[in-house]
């Protein structure tokens, strides 16, 4: 169950980071019974690239934390970077080369973590 306070903080972080001026991620509820396509172990392997900037502890020191996100929000934001709807050259490049399965796996992995901040 998403922690709504954490998600509100996250949305604030995205806005502050200037990633999107004036818009916030659209929260979609997952259709009941729809399975996650992601594999946690694959997500953990891929995550080593992310945690250089996005701290595993969930600390926010200028780069938005991505720990404990609802999976749908994670996938949606990554897709927005993929389609260059969300500005940031680093994230557009990173999201651009990830497959649907890889994004889903990262969503599962990071979604399963608890922020320790």
């Amino acid at each position: 169950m998403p922690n709504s306070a954490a998600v509100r903080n996250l949305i604030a972080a995205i806005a502050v980071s200037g990633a999107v001026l004036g818009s916030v991620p659209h929260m979609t509820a997952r259709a009941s019974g729809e399975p996650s396509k992601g594999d946690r172990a694959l997500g953990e392997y891929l995550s080593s690239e992310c945690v250089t900037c996005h701290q595993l502890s969930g600390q926010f020191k200028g780069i938005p934390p991505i720990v404990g996100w609802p999976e749908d929000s994670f996938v949606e934001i990554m897709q927005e970077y993929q389609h260059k709807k969300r500005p940031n050259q680093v994230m557009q490049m990173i999201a651009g080369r990830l497959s649907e399965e890889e994004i889903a796996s990262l969503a599962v992995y990071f979604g399963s973590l608890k922020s320790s901040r």
Partner: protein
Amino acid sequence: MSTSRRQFLGGVGALAAASSLPCPAIAQAKAKLVVVGGGPGGATIAKYVAKDSGGKIDVILVEPAKQFTTCFHSNLYLGGFRDFKSITHPYSALAKYGVKLNHQAATAVDKSKKTVRLASGTVLPYDRLVIAPGIDLKFDSIPGYSEAASAVMPHAWKAGPQTQLLKKQLDALKDGDLIVMIAPPNPYRCPPGPYERISMMAHVLKAKGHKKSKIVILDPKPNFSKQGLFVEGWEKHYPGMVEWQDPKVHGGIKSVDAKTRIVRTDLAEYKAQLVNVIPAQMAGKIARDAGLANDSGFCPINPENMKSAMDANIYVVGDACIAGDMPKSAFSANSQAKVAALMIRGELAGAKTFPARYTNTCWSLIETDDTVKVGGRYEAKDGKIAAVETFISKTGESADLRKQTQVENMGWYSGITADIFS
């Protein structure tokens, strides 16, 4: 005379006892990984192998220093944007992952015996070895320069006391003084670094109200990383203060004099109050002495796994290696280290491995809230680490975007130092 019965029985008993001891090969010893060098490359490998190998690999990190001062963001300390303590990180947290810290210098590698000798004479055996010593400076690449001369004309290209010396010299300058930087030839650590440093020096002088001070950069290169962005920034923020000379202008750097701080080129002679010489570079000594470097002075590697091209039991990551299209940067070292850590766990602990993927981003601060970046992603291709996609900041970007890029820069520093040292 014959052996006494007691002696004989004692001997047989001892022999029998010796035969019943377990044979060393039967007792399952943990695989041994020795990592030489505790920078972003070595420390990342040590941490990641120790934390992810489920106790199957013994990891020793050999690094003389008890804490690490980052070269990255040392320019921001020079510019007064952060303090020295904030760019210095202890190694102590790595112990919680099971990394054994050995605070000595490694002096030699015996590739056939698979051992590393330390300064104390201790010999460490390894199953796999990581050599990540960073760079050494070719002091003799500029006539008149030497290691001794760096006490007067610092390079500050290895962070620590040299950085503090350069900061002290910078802060002591008076209005009207001249700074001369000799920039390094390719390949070198941190391509945009010298030019970020120039920006930070100019910032300090401008902030103090110096209107007559000048900075001259004598470059052996015809162009440099993020040149258009730096030139735009210097013209905007420090008009008339910074002069960059390429080889066609200066005609060649002839000499530096540590006694007088006189720098001579084919074109002119400069009597400077601060001379920052950044010489040509090569891989750290232990890598070269171990026969891991080629004629370039740097170490060729297999781009699919970061193994040395000279020895399949040795990995080389970070500034010491030849990483194709990847620049020598902390971000690159950390990225290469994660590939190497995965491959080491694959070899020593049966872990599942995936194809290598690398990334890098380099941020450069030009003036307060004005930061630019360059970066890319890379893969093993055509026998080297090749860029698949790259990006760079644009001239004329909005102040908001440049400010956001600086926020990102600070966030990255916090993230990568937590990733390596926490």
